[in-house]
């Protein structure tokens, strides 16, 4: 049997169970209480910090054919401003005349400022055990610089408003051999898949807890995972084909989640099972 990393299915965003625990027998409550204890003991010392430190170094280091750093990269709050930028994404960028999420924007900066080729960066964008990408470490660094801030995507530009609306429709699109949409698992309160609680992403609280604690270091893989990866793996478990990296479909879903989570606290990068 070949080895495959264990992925949780549609259990996309882990939440503290106490909030969502329902009745259903003492055994179950006890199980959930112990798992909550497990999570408490894990708090702090998040290996994502190792990626944040590396990402900061990569951000400041000169690299690429143009031998430039990313310190002039505009993440929406002006060239070089990292602090708080992620909390206000995805957003419309006039220089490309489209809405971008963090990863699309980082690729844009690595291409325009450093001279990398977009296809080289996006061909295999996700970390594996023996291949860690600069892009992924940069994600950790940038999201870490929004920790504790309020999730506040602008949602003012017509393209931003439309993308959030499109994301909502994609969220409810049922297809594939299992008839699954995102909503199949993430549109009701208090549901679990196996032991994994499923946030209701159509509510503010559910979205805030989920969107607000991703990207994250995932224990089951021992790797730091970005939002593009997160959505990609959702679709895998929905039994869909693969969404293209940085595609509008992914950006639209992220903006839909960010708009539901808006006003809540960003508390990532997270630490997930």
């Amino acid at each position, binding site marked *: 049997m070949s080895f495959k990393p264990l992925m*949780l299915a549609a259990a996309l965003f882990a939440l503290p169970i106490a909030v969502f625990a329902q009745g259903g027998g003492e055994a179950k409550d006890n199980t959930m209480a112990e798992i909550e204890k497990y999570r408490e003991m894990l708090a702090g010392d998040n290996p994502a910090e190792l990626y944040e430190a590396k990402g900061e170094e990569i951000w400041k280091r000169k690299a690429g054919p143009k031998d430039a750093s990313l310190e002039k990269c505009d993440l929406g709050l002006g060239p070089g401003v990292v602090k708080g930028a992620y909390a206000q994404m995805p957003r419309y960028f006039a220089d490309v005349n489209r809405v971008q999420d963090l990863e699309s924007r980082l690729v844009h900066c690595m291409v325009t400022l450093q001279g990398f080729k977009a296809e080289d960066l996006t061909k295999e964008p996700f970390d594996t055990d023996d291949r860690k990408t600069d892009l992924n470490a940069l994600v950790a660094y940038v999201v870490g610089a929004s920790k504790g801030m309020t999730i506040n995507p602008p949602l003012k530009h017509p393209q931003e408003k439309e993308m959030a609306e499109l994301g909502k429709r994609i969220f409810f699109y049922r297809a594939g051999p299992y008839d699954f949409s995102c909503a199949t698992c993430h549109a009701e309160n208090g549901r679990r898949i196996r032991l994994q609680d499923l946030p209701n992403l159509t509510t503010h609280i559910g979205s805030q807890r989920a969107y607000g604690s991703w990207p994250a270091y995932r224990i089951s893989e021992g790797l730091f995972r970005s939002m593009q990866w997160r959505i990609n793996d959702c679709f895998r478990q929905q039994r869909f084909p693969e969404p293209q990296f940085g595609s509008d479909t992914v950006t639209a879903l992220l903006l839909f989640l960010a708009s539901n989570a808006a006003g809540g606290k960003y508390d990532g990068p997270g630490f997930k099972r």
Partner: protein
Amino acid sequence: MDKLRRMLLKGTGASGALAAALAAGVLKPGQVFAADWNKAAFDAKDIDGALKGAGVSGAADSKDVTIKAPDIAENGAVVPIEVASNVPKTQQIMVFIEKNPTPLAASFDLQNGTEPSVSLRVKMGQTSNIKVVAKADGKFYTTAKEVKVTIGGCGG
């Protein structure tokens, strides 16, 4: 969880790979390291062998040795534990995961004022006892705690 169970229980290739590493001479102890890595103890495939390799004999059950760990681990790849000894003159603390393919996880020599309390994160391939042995004044004291490992996600 299946991943980890497979990872820990499948195959016997580890000893081979390790032997190769040893043969290649990459295990030279650096200056900073006082003791050589205890190969006999770490390579032992069962708890008795690991205890023997670590030189543990006649360990007495003791309430003064404690293990703080969740009763249920959401993911066996990372199980947070805190181990401590209140036995006076504790000089060493060892942690064993009884059902892992190689049970000895770590051994801590405490020197120059370090308190007999250490926290760490261990892998558990399946539900198992965690066994902690403290060495104090040449004698061994022990306790154990079971941690259940659950199946998470949907195995896809």
